[in-house]
Each structure stands twice: as structure tokens, then as C-alpha cells.
């Protein structure tokens, strides 16, 4: 996993609630056996019509918008546990998703893939949407070390929560498996003192 560094970027607004994983990456694209290439099918059925032509109204097809930050409505990532949703977003080049609420599994999957979910309040979310609406080129800065998100145009700073362990992992670019592999002896000792019925 790549280490997560501080960056500035424009943002892509998706003011829709309950965006589920079937919208993020429809099930018919889950047939791959590698992690690559999912970005091309991110939001496939919103992005393209049945004849595979771009849907002009959809934000990813609008050249005015772009960037490494996706801002979405409440309860983002609900639905299935498919990690492909995180790979699709990451594969598209997005590093941060901002919403006022994330589905549990999605949040975990995102963090395991170096994608940072930032949860903000409803009011803050509205403020961010407004900032993008007013200026499509509005810049935002993400500073994970300081757990701070800044709307550069007006200097508004938003603090966000992330637990220490995950923060360390993201900043250093390592994952849970590295940690668990170090724990083998303790795991074996645990196994030896119990029975599975």
C-alpha cells in the first residue's frame, strides 16, 4: 500500500444519499481476478447508458469537475461487502471520500486500501457542496497527520476523526496483515487454550 501524503485537490460532488455498492460497481463487473481496472467501471450505470454512451448529465462525464476527492450524500457505500467498490474508487484516482455517514463495511474496506473516508456533519457537508457549486475549481486540502480538511477558498478548517491505529497504517502505508503476521505465537497460544465446539 502507498503511504498517504498531504495533498490539495478539486472535488467531485455527488449529492445523492444511500449510494450503494451496486451503483459504485455493478455486480456484473466483479468477475475479475485481479484488483486492476475497476476504475473504468466506477458508477457504470450512472455514467453510461445501455448503448455504452456517456450520460451527459452525470458528474464524472462533466469536464468541469474532477479531482482526487469525492463528496457524497449520507450513508455512502451501503449494500454488499464487495471491496471492489473501494478498488473502483481508488482505481479512478480518488484518494478521499467525504460524506456525512458511511456504511460500516465500506469504511473498513476503504481504509484497508489506502482510501480515506472522512465523516463530516450534515452542515459541513452542505458547506462543502456549496463551495464546489460556487466554484468548480475550488481547492481543498487534506492533511491526515493533522486530521484536518480545509476549504482553501475561505480557509474553513474541518477536523475529522480517525483512530490512531488506522491513521498510522495509512501514513506509513502498511496494512493489517503485516501486523497480524507478527502475532503468530500469540495466536497459536490462544488456539491451544480453547476448543471449537
Amino acid at each position, binding site marked *: 500500500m502507498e503511504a498517504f501524503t498531504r495533498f490539495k485537490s478539486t472535488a467531485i460532488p455527488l449529492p445523492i*444519499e*444511500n449510494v*450503494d455498492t*451496486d*451503483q459504485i460497481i*455493478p*455486480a*456484473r463487473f*466483479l*468477475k*475479475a*481476478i*485481479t*484488483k486492476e481496472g475497476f476504475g473504468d467501471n466506477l458508477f457504470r*450505470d450512472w455514467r453510461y447508458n*445501455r448503448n455504452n454512451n456517456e450520460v451527459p448529465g452525470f458528474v464524472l462525464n462533466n469536464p468541469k469537475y474532477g479531482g482526487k476527492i469525492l463528496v457524497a450524500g*449520507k*450513508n455512502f457505500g*451501503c*449494500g*454488499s*461487502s*464487495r*471491496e*471492489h467498490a*473501494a478498488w473502483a474508487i481508488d482505481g479512478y484516482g480518488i484518494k478521499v471520500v467525504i460524506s456525512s*455517514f458511511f*456504511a*460500516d*463495511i465500506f469504511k*473498513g*474496506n476503504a481504509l*484497508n*486500501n489506502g482510501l480515506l473516508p472522512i465523516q463530516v456533519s450534515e452542515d459541513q457537508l452542505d458547506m462543502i457542496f456549496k463551495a464546489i457549486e460556487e466554484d468548480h475549481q475550488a481547492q481543498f486540502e487534506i492533511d491526515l497527520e493533522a486530521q484536518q480538511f480545509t476549504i482553501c477558498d475561505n480557509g474553513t478548517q474541518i477536523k475529522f476523526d480517525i*483512530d*490512531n*491505529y488506522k491513521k498510522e497504517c495509512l501514513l506509513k502505508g502498511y*496494512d*493489517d*496483515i503485516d*501486523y*497480524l*503476521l507478527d*502475532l*503468530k505465537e*500469540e*495466536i497459536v497460544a*490462544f*488456539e491451544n487454550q*480453547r476448543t*471449537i*465446539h
Partner: protein
Amino acid sequence: MAKTLFDKIWDAHVVKDIDSTRQVVYIDRHFIHEVTSPQAFSGLRNRNIGLFRTNQTTATADHNVPTLNQHLPIKDPLSRSQVDALSQNCKEFGVELYQLGHELQGIVHVIGPELGITRPGMTIVCGDSHTSTHGAFGNIAFGIGTSQVEQVFASQCLILSKPKTMRITVNGDLQKGVTAKDVILYIISKLTAAGGTGYFVEYAGSTFDSMSMEERMTICNMSIEMGARGGMIAPDETTFKYIKGRKFAPKGEQYDQAIRYWSTLYTDADAVFDVEHSYEAADIGPMLTYGTNPGMGIQVSEHIPNASEYLDPKQLTKSLDYMGLQEGQLLEGQEIQHVFIGSCTNARIEDLRSVAKFVDGKQKADHVQVWIVPGSKQVEQQAKKEGLDKVFANAGFQLREPGCSACLGMNEDKVPAGDYCISTSNRNFEGRQGPGARTILASPLSAAAAAIEGKIVDVRKYLN
């Protein structure tokens, strides 16, 4: 200190505390299938390691498999490559696999219980959100992502934060024609599709106590549809009886020992949950969904809400547009073109029996296509042994071979755009059953009744 059932099992599996919120939790059983495992196997290869506990892992092919002519090579090249990759990976890493054509193959959440692998007190994971199904046996079972599949491969452990606990109590007897599926759709309609987020649910009360294991699995299966991590029901005599004698169940003295342990698995009388909800069984009627998430459900006697009275009017309008339905409309009488009876929610033998009993001697409506997709090879065999296949054939229902099928439309089993499908599966998301497909979730009984009439009906009118 008084403990909930969840706490008892969780605490017994903590290997180590990492910090105040994170723990290393031991996993007793890992189920895998072809869709969410290949990248995890590649991860092991990249790290040059094998599985830590191969014999606690069980694999089957289910999501992609065709449900006709399973003896022939899979036509779709991508599906075939995933199913083949599973076979190769299992061979290379030494994992027990019930591949296509194997007599024990089936949907992963159907075969675990029917083989006696799923038991009380365990921690069970699978790279699939409906792993919550196994919780019907009084264990902690939940879906994980592919990185976590790799973690369990590598260490038989996961790094987790303990979820909050919620208890949902339902008491009383259900009306005739009202099933476990209606109960869970009712609960989700009350709590919404996000109402359980962050929680692990225990279902309690006399309504669940008197349910069969199959019905309890239907309940726990859909816990995830209200956003919960999982659902569970305390084990009892019904549970023990179901497990006894199954292929991988403990036998003899081990079974007796297991029962002694399993009997300690219940929520202590004064244990406290973070949240409690309770409902009366008598208030629940046959349920149907009208929208594009499982929380958008109503009783067959109720009208679709009006935007003005709905919590999130925009979502309602968008969903109804997709569904081609109107606010304030009754669903009863709505014409349907497809009926799908299958999925890990409702494709066990009891579901097939209840459908067969209902349709025996009746005929499907001409314009309707009816698919019955058994949850496993064993369910299919049992159905044939009991002659259910003949009942289905006489009614014009097509009994297919086991797999996930039209539940998620990863194989050829899709519903055409714009068509309505009454489905016993668990998700009515846009495009779930195929691009543009319109899904109405319901119980197997309601689905069977709709198959006969060619439109949505109140199944109770047949039963009184």
C-alpha cells in the same frame, strides 16, 4: 457481570487488545467463494505465505455459476475464469472445495448450515455480506472484504472494533400466510436501510423462538439490509436438533460436550443493549418492497407513501421513477413478468416445500416466467426425492440448478430492463437483477401467489 449473547461469544474470541477500540479476534470458520477470494489468494502469493489454518476454511462456487446445464463448461469466459481460479487456488493452497457439480455445492450460506459446519458459539466470516445468515445458530457471523479474507487466510484472525448491540424483540403468533421473510422486511421497513448501522443485532421473543432454523436463517440473513453487521438468535433445542447428525457436526461424546457449552449461550437476564426495539407479530402482514432499497417496504394492504409524508422525498421520487410506480399506489394488482424463488434468503428445502404445497394443482399465469433456484445441490436432490420437481413442472415453474442466480445477476439469469420481478431474494437495488430490472422483494408464498395470478396479490385470501 451480566452479558449479552454477543458479548459472551466475542469475549471468548479476543486474542489481544490493540488499543481501546481495536482487538485481534480469532475466527473459527472461514467460508470462501469465487468472487471475493482470488485477489486474497494473489496477496498470499505476493507475500510468499500459505493459509494459516487450511482446515478451518471451506470453499464453494456459487455467485457466477450457470443454473442450467452445470455439467457443461461455463459459457461466459469471465465467469469461467473466476470459477477456474477458485479451483486452482484451492488446489494450490489445500482448501476443501465443493466445486460446480459436486454433490455438496451450493450457495455458501446454505451449505454451511446444512453440512453442520455452522454451529453455535463460533465466529464465522465470509467475503459476502449475507454471512449474517449463519447467526441463526447463535454465533457471530458477518461479511468481510477481500483484504480481510486475506487477513484470515494469513492469520485466522481479524482486527476489529467491537460493534454496539441492538436487541429486536417480536412476540406473539404470526397470521396465516405471514412468514419469516415478512417479519424481517417489516422490521427493516420500520428501522430503514441504515437503521442498524454500527450494531450487531440479537433477535429475541416468542415469535423467533417458535421459528424453524430455516426461518431463523431468513431473519438473520437480512440483518445486513438495515445496515447491521450481523444478526443472531440464541441457540435452543430447535438449533441442537437441526445440527445433530449433519455431516460435520460433532458426534457422540463431543456432541454432548458441545450441547453443554451451547446451552450457556444466551443473553443474561439483566444484560444491557445499546438499543432495543420491539414489535408485535400480530401487526405484521405480507410485505412487499416498492422502492430501491429493502427499507422501502409496505404491507400488501398499504399504499406506497406520498412524497410529502416520506422522510426523504427525493429518494422516494427517484426510486419510484426507476420502479415505474406512483406515490400513493397500491401494489396489489400490479402486473409482474418474472418470479424468482431462490437466494440465500429463501432457497432452502422448507421454502421449496411451502411453495410446492401452495401451487400443487395450480398453474402459473401465461405471461409469467417462474424460476425456482435451489440453494444447494442437496436441496435440489431433496426436492426431487420428495417429488416437488413434478409439482413445479405441472405448475409451469422451472426448477433450475443451485447458485446465486438472479439474486445478483452475475450469471445469465437476469431480469430484462423495465420488467417487474417478484423475488424472494434480499436486495432490490437498481440494476441488482440486471440493468433496468425492477425488483419487488417478498416471501416465497407471496411470490408463488403472484406467479399464479400474474400480478401481486394478498396471499392470505387463498389461505382463509
